[in-house]
């Protein structure tokens, strides 16, 4: 073994020891290249998900049933934009530029959460998204607050503080509809039927089939496994559905006394794979909306830069 290899091994051992001692890794600290790449992939995809996640909800902004609902939904969507920005900012500390991340999203190289490739067909979907999708996101994100990478963990703490508003606004919509007319109850049930399984898919493949999980757990990027988090979400959500008087669309769902958890049916992994591959109902539409927004905003960014340059120039001349 030559000197460089040996030095690298020592650095890696020290890094692993640091992580296991629950010390946080900060941007300028030495880290294995794969750790950096894994974080860039995961964090940028997380950021993209927040940004793309604004689209399904934006669909109902102009058709919210009241001014109150509309202003609340607007605030929630603004939060999602903010969450995307916290995460892009944290990812940039790893040495990738914002433009590179946008480029990866727009070219399809970087993924975002598949849940946002499902359409929002009516107002009840906005309730179901807040309750289920944000609920699942919180379950994931609470675990990430203890991630070994400092900037990611700090962004997650900030995000988690704001997410509970999102889940409550969703549940509030569901409660109102579930206690409403027969037609409104049916809409709420229909939304639950369509969003339940895609929500469970948000936790990713089963542990046995999750290629990156073991390494991420070792590096303490991930703190809990996909299946553990999924179970946690199901256990928490079933009583919430019961309170609403709605039925979770799963024949196999039943309390298991021995395990102390709910048993539930198998996810349709073929559908999961198809949507990840780009064949969901809205993949193309979502991506196009992002590309259009970015291209459409170019003249604003250019004008702002030109204005800043002009001002700086004037200041220099006056001095």
């Amino acid at each position: 073994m030559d000197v460089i290899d040996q030095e690298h091994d020592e650095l890696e051992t020290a890094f692993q020891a640091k992580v296991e001692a629950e010390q946080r890794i900060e941007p300028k600290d030495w880290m294995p290249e794969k750790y950096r790449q894994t974080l860039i992939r995961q964090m940028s995809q997380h950021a993209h998900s927040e940004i793309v996640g604004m689209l399904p909800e934006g669909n109902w902004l102009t058709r919210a049933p009241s001014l109150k609902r509309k202003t609340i939904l607007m605030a929630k969507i603004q939060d999602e934009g903010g969450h995307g920005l916290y995460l892009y900012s944290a990812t940039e500390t790893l040495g990738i530029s914002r433009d590179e991340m946008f480029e990866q999203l727009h070219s399809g190289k970087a993924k975002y959460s598949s849940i946002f490739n499902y359409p929002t067909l009516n107002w009840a979907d906005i309730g179901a998204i807040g309750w289920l999708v944000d609920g699942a996101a919180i379950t994931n994100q609470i675990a990430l607050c203890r991630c070994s990478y400092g900037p990611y963990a700090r962004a997650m703490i900030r995000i988690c503080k704001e997410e509970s508003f999102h889940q409550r606004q969703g549940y509030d919509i569901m409660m109102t509809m579930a206690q409403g007319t027969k037609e409104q109850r049916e809409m709420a049930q229909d939304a639950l039927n369509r969003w339940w399984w895609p929500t469970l898919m948000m936790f990713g493949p089963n542990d046995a089939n999750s290629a990156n999980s073991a390494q991420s757990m070792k590096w303490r990027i991930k703190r809990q496994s996909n299946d553990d988090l999924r179970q946690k979400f199901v256990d928490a959500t079933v009583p919430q559905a019961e309170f609403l008087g709605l039925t979770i669309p799963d024949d196999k769902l039943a309390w298991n006394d021995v395990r102390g958890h709910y048993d539930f049916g198998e996810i349709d992994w073929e559908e999961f794979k198809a949507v990840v591959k780009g064949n969901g109902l809205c993949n193309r539409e979502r991506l196009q909306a992002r590309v259009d927004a970015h291209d459409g905003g170019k003249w604003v960014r250019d004008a702002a830069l030109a204005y800043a340059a002009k001002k700086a120039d004037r200041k220099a001349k006056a001095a």
Partner: protein
Amino acid sequence: MNIETKSELPLYEVFIRSKNGLDHKHVGSLHASDAEMALTNARDVYTRRGEGVSIWVVKSTDIVASSPEDRGSFYEPSDDKLYRHPTFFELPDEVGHL
């Protein structure tokens, strides 16, 4: 870095004082064309729920940072001055709290 990076709006680091009496604390970064836009963007991104009473923005390129690799030698001058810590001095119990 690719060519497009050149047209990227400059990066600013954001520091927020959550209330009077506390220090400004680093909260993250954002892109803006100038300092004024950085301030208003920082307000929108980082203080949507009354998280701050004062904001500083600093161009990221203007920050000079120590490097973690030099941590040993950089801080060494203070490491051998144990007498700077009150625990260096042994006090008889009779003296009580000092």
